[in-house]
């Protein structure tokens, strides 16, 4: 992209970069993305939050390695009979809380009833949550941006049609859709357990995407509507640049800010939605997830609070860190905020 074009966007902001910095070295100009990153780096909240998210991401990615290294039995189910570890549903005192002392063998204790290691399940749950949230975000962003671009740039009937479709999707209740799809998937793949787990995973992402792209599409459409009338777009049209090129080379770079902001705010939304759906029993059931861990934990809260608190705190940290980070990203990209 050219500097000229970027200056179109950047020039309105009061924080336009100084022409000369303290050392006297001349700076030609910085992209808004660059500016935002610089501002993010100075934002303590952003730094803390991104560190937290990064740690959780690493924990999630390395879940199998960590579990193996610590000798935790994610073991689904454990290789020795689960009842060897249990006494009346709860883990025996020698295997940690609630009735025994802390033990390094099982830092977060064992799950009642199944004797799964809670830490291992938590790590795998984080992994699942991230995978779902990330995939759903990427897909809904791609869909939302494409549709928004087309709707904003096309005039007349196509724009009206797309806007109508967006309205239709917006008016359809998300929870109802999720609740209705789960049993259909279950019965469709009833006899293929391996496929069922995958089908649940992708149908969950599908549901999240289907009900998650409209906001961004609308936002992008609005932006494109105003950008379309700008001189650089008109100039491009006049000299005969193909529409595809105008959309992706001229318009899209100017939409980086709203897109990044939306992504950073929808990630925590999807994490929370995944947990919520799992809690309702319509999300993932075959593989560990944070929502499922919470659902199980609620039954044992009185006797075994740790069993519930571990996944709850993890989800809370994850969602809060992503949210605050999203806020910071939005502030960093917003030319009208001053720091």
């Amino acid at each position, binding site marked *: 992209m050219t500097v000229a074009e970027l200056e179109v966007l950047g020039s309105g902001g009061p924080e336009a970069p100084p022409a000369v910095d303290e050392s006297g070295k001349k700076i030609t100009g910085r992209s808004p993305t660059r500016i935002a990153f610089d501002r993010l780096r100075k934002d303590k909240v952003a730094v803390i939050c991104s560190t937290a998210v990064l740690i959780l991401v690493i924990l999630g990615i390395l879940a199998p390695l960590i579990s193996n290294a610590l000798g935790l039995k994610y073991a689904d189910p454990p290789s020795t009979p689960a*009842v060897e570890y249990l006494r009346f549903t709860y883990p025996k005192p020698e295997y940690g809380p609630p009735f025994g002392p802390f033990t390094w063998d099982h830092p977060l204790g064992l799950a009642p009833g199944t004797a799964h290691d809670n830490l291992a399940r938590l790590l795998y749950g984080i992994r699942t949550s991230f995978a779902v949230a990330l995939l759903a975000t990427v897909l809904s962003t791609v869909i939302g941006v494409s549709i928004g671009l087309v709707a904003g740039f096309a005039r007349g009937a196509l724009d009206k049609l797309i806007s109508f479709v967006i309205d239709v999707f917006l008016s359809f209740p998300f929870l109802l859709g999720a609740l209705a799809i789960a049993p259909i998937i279950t019965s469709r793949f*009833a006899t293929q357990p391996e496929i069922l787990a995958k089908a649940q995973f992708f149908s969950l992402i599908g549901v999240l995407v289907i009900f998650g792209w409209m906001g961004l599409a609308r936002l992008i459409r609005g932006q494109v509507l105003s950008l379309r009338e700008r001189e650089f777009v008109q100039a491009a049209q006049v000299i005969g640049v193909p529409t595809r090129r105008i959309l992706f080379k001229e318009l899209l770079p100017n939409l980086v800010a709203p897109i990044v902001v939306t992504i950073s705010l929808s990630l925590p939304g999807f994490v929370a939605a995944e947990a919520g759906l799992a809690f309702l*029993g*319509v999300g993932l059931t075959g593989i560990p997830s944070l929502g499922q861990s919470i659902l199980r934990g609620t039954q044992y809260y009185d006797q075994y609070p740790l069993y519930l608190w571990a996944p709850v705190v993890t989800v809370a940290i994850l969602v809060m860190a992503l949210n605050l980070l999203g806020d910071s990203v939005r502030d960093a990209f917003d030319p009208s905020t001053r720091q």
Partner: protein
Amino acid sequence: MRLNKPIVAVSTVALLALAACGGSGGGGGTPGGQPTDTFKEGGGSGQGTDPTRNEGPAPEIEGAQEGGTVKVISVAGLNSMDPSEAYYTNTIAILQQLVTRSLTQFVYDEESGDVILIPDLATDLGTPNEDFTEWEFTIRPGVRYENGQEVTADDVAFGIKRSFDRASFPEGAAYSNDYFVDGDTYEGPYKNKGDDYKGIVVDGDTLTLKMRKPFPDMAYWGSFPAIGPIPEGDASDPAKYSQHPWATGPYMFDEYTPEKSLTLVKNPEWDAATDPGRHQYVDGYEMQFDVATPKIDQIMLQDEGEAKNTVSFDSVSAPNYLQFKQDASDRLLFGSEPCTFMWYPDYRQIKDINVRKALAYAYPYKDAYAASGAIEGVTRIPGTNIMPPGIPGREEFNPLPDHEKGATDAAKAKELLTEADALGFEIKFLYATDDTASVDTQKVISAALEEAGFKATPVASTIADSSTTRADPSADINVRSGGWCSDWPSGGSWFPPVFETTDLDKEGLGANYAVFSEPAVDKRIAEIQELDLKEQPAAWNELDQTIQADYFPVFVTSYGGAALMRGSNVNNAFIDPTFGMPTMKDMWLTQ
């Protein structure tokens, strides 16, 4: 008869919706990891009868105080409360113990921890003819409905006729249809209007019931609410009668909100002098249903205020069992449910007996109890006989060599599979994806099957669909998980429904989840039913062994048990082993 648990709770035991349930089981049990201690061998429930206890009032209970209102809380709502249709453990318990009187009744005997069958409306336990095809009952005088109207033998006859009507009362027990003269064609007083049904003859206060095949257990069937008086006419319109059945017992309906609550108050017309079994110590009952399990546990555990006067219809849940046992073990009521939970390999699809035996070795009994949220030794007790402890004639045996009850032996299973040349045999069984306990149980079972050399294919279903799928003979599964509870302590309430060939097109599976069909067994069942009553118990037990030794069509995963909770003011609450419900006839409150 049917268990009262909602499908959610039921599915936690890997989809056990019990088809029918009721009359037996062991005596009071003890908690702890010693499963075999929980049942009293040979001290079976309801085996005892005492026809001489036919004079009211029931003996006073020492120290019993009058007054107060007993609260009842339970997860499960009530299904139909129409006496002709009540066939769930909770509806039968409420009606039979408190509201409606029948020909006979059960009373609890504290000494033996057992219930005894004694006369109720009838003056004795009935007089059969030589081959049990005709029974004579005399209805006692002086019994009145809650509105003062006298109960006559005609009312009882009408009540019995109503019990034939499967269209109006689809959920009711079908014993009248099965045994009475023309029971298979007679459709009750509403469908066959004006038809003079010839199976019941009323002569003054004497009822003569005629059977088309020997029915030695008529006195037990007589204890069901269905075999009691119901007023003829508009009052007993099947559409409305379940809202307020006319009380003949010590308590009557006051307010009833289906699925939510039921309030019972004293029935002023009940005369203790006519009732040899019931008391009226408390002023009434307030029953609250649809209460969440954790809430029930908390209310009962805290035992404050009204909770002191409360009993639960549900067992303490596994998460709270340990604390309850530590803090308030005296307020736990241990006992048995007369049920056997089994795995039923499909007899049409799993043809090799060695494969079926391998399944029994491979099944992860104790892990499955734990994963399903049951409490080993308390609500789930390993066993091998199909007839649960308490059934007369039952003798402990194990059809599998070197197999301990409730033990898993993957190596032995693999050996059998190899012998049968069936390594990698695919086992397809149902589970509900929307129930964590069911998912956990499924994983435990799958892993155990794989370890034993099977190929485990769990078939996903949902809580809502699973029981329908299981009852479908053509469903794509080859093992069904389920159970059966006896209606009265006799092998006669076990083998005919569970192992007799069923007409799949006409009746579906019924309770024969294994789709078991062997002419030799059918023949033997028919023979035993014709045997002298004294020889039957031993014959049933022998059949239990023969079936398992020769065909091994099913294997027992556990027997059922109960650990109900009571408030500290509630006295004389025991487990009625015929229902796994609290005994309410003798209950009184400390004031």
